[in-house]
């Protein structure tokens, strides 16, 4: 299944750094998300977009992950050549990640 089935997401921007939150609709899916949506996977999903490091922060109280992606916005929102200079559309692209459902069918 797609990450979109279990999580929602929002992108924010500061300079040349994009952050994407990934929030489980249901707290029971948070462990699955934490296991499979790693910083390395996000970095490879955004090959060609994110030039720098991807760091993941965990917020178990919110069943959420926050990905901070360096050198992700074409040199910075205020100077980027990109159509979507803020990278606002990146959150939807991340929800396209494939997730392997847990064995017990959750």
């Amino acid at each position, binding site marked *: 299944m797609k990450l979109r089935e279990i999580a929602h*997401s929002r992108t924010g921007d500061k*300079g040349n750094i994009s952050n994407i939150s990934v929030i489980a609709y249901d707290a029971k899916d948070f462990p699955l998300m934490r296991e499979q949506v790693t910083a390395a996977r996000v970095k490879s999903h955004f090959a060609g977009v994110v030039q720098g490091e991807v760091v993941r*922060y965990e917020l178990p109280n919110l069943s959420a992950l926050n990905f901070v992606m360096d050198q992700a916005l074409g040199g910075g929102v205020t100077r980027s050549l990109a159509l979507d200079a803020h990278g606002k559309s990146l959150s939807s692209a991340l929800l396209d990640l494939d997730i392997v459902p847990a064995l017990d069918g959750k």
Partner: protein
Amino acid sequence: MYAHKGDGDEVRTIRIGSGAGYSGDRIEPAIELAEKGDIQYLVFECLGERTVALAQQARMKNPESGYDPLLEERMRAVLPICASKGIKIVTNMGAANPEAAARKTADIAKSLGLSALKIAAIVGDDVLDACKDGDLPIMEFDGTIRQLGNRLLSANAYLGAEPMAQALTAGADIVITGRASDPALFLAPMIHAFGWAMDDWNLLGQGTVAGHLLECAGQITGGYFADPGYKDVADLARLGFPIGEVGEDGGLVVTKIAGSGGAVTAQTCKEQLLYEVHDPAKYFQPDVVADFSQVKVEEIGPDRVRVSGGRGAKRTDTLKVSVGYVDSYIGEGQISYAGPGALARGRLALEIVRERLKLTGVETSELRFELVGVDALHGPDVSAHANEPYEVRVRVSGRTENLREAVRIGNEVETLYTNGPAAGGGAWKSARDVVAVASVLLPRELAKPQIRFVGA
């Protein structure tokens, strides 16, 4: 107003409305808040990252300009209601010229017959001289302030809540600032109303949670959220803007006016809590280093969400300064293809322009060739498996050192009309200078905010 807490202890509470999340935002939701929101404070956050730099350019041409272009429209819309109900206004619509904005607001108030209003401008965020004196290093790239030479336009420190709170305590009905941290616009009424100490880091941290949640207005009431079939939101055309009910103990409930469009849910609050946040345990603000890592979000009623657990640590010794400078020029051209073979013709068009820019020697430091509808947003790798669309839009953009070169990029797309693939339509081009922003850290004591009162 008073709210009851458990065993009957009364906790003083204020209601703060968020009337704008950016400079061009809708105006009617702010009027709705003033009329029906039972609020004591109305905050307008209208200052984007580079807006001060652009406003500074305007001010250099005309000393009475340099404030938000929608100031007059917004003030005319809300001043009569706010004055009659005693609602205080806090805004960063001062941009590069808070004093001129205050004088303009006084004129508007007078013309509306509201002569008793006290209007305060907060000045001192302009720290260009201090930044030049210190030749401070730029955070985003190698270089210093002075190395920007005559490309340097402005340097404005993100001021904290204290001068705005002092202005309210001194009796201001309207507080107009330039560059200040966005959450501080909301923190100021809390500090003023509750007398919070400027070193009560946990209260300032929780107050920052409130300000951060409210500062983008509609983004917490269902805007920037809807995804049909997954996250449905009713009545976005009449989106209501948020109200924060804040207690003197930092307790926070986010809500909106009954009957307005949108929704306040745990989901909208969580998305906004993490919006533009890096390390959630260290959200750097001028007044506090806020910690969002232990925040809890709980739906307590329809469109009512309690947000608790924000904390804070001692503020840093530096203030972030936004530096505006002329970065480069960008030239761009677009043209569309449709029907069978649209994708192949779009790709051919890109190849032609790529070769033309080489042949004619257009000088660029960066170029993008893309097909809108195919790979423009996330590049060829991410979108490799997309289906063939009915129509595509060719887009070529490039960075140049001057306007003349930038113009040549759009021209090479436009000439595809008569020189390119079959049936290209709707060509469009632009060339513009790019005012960009970078950041430096300034020792805190070098920014000296002041309050200037203007009577209506």
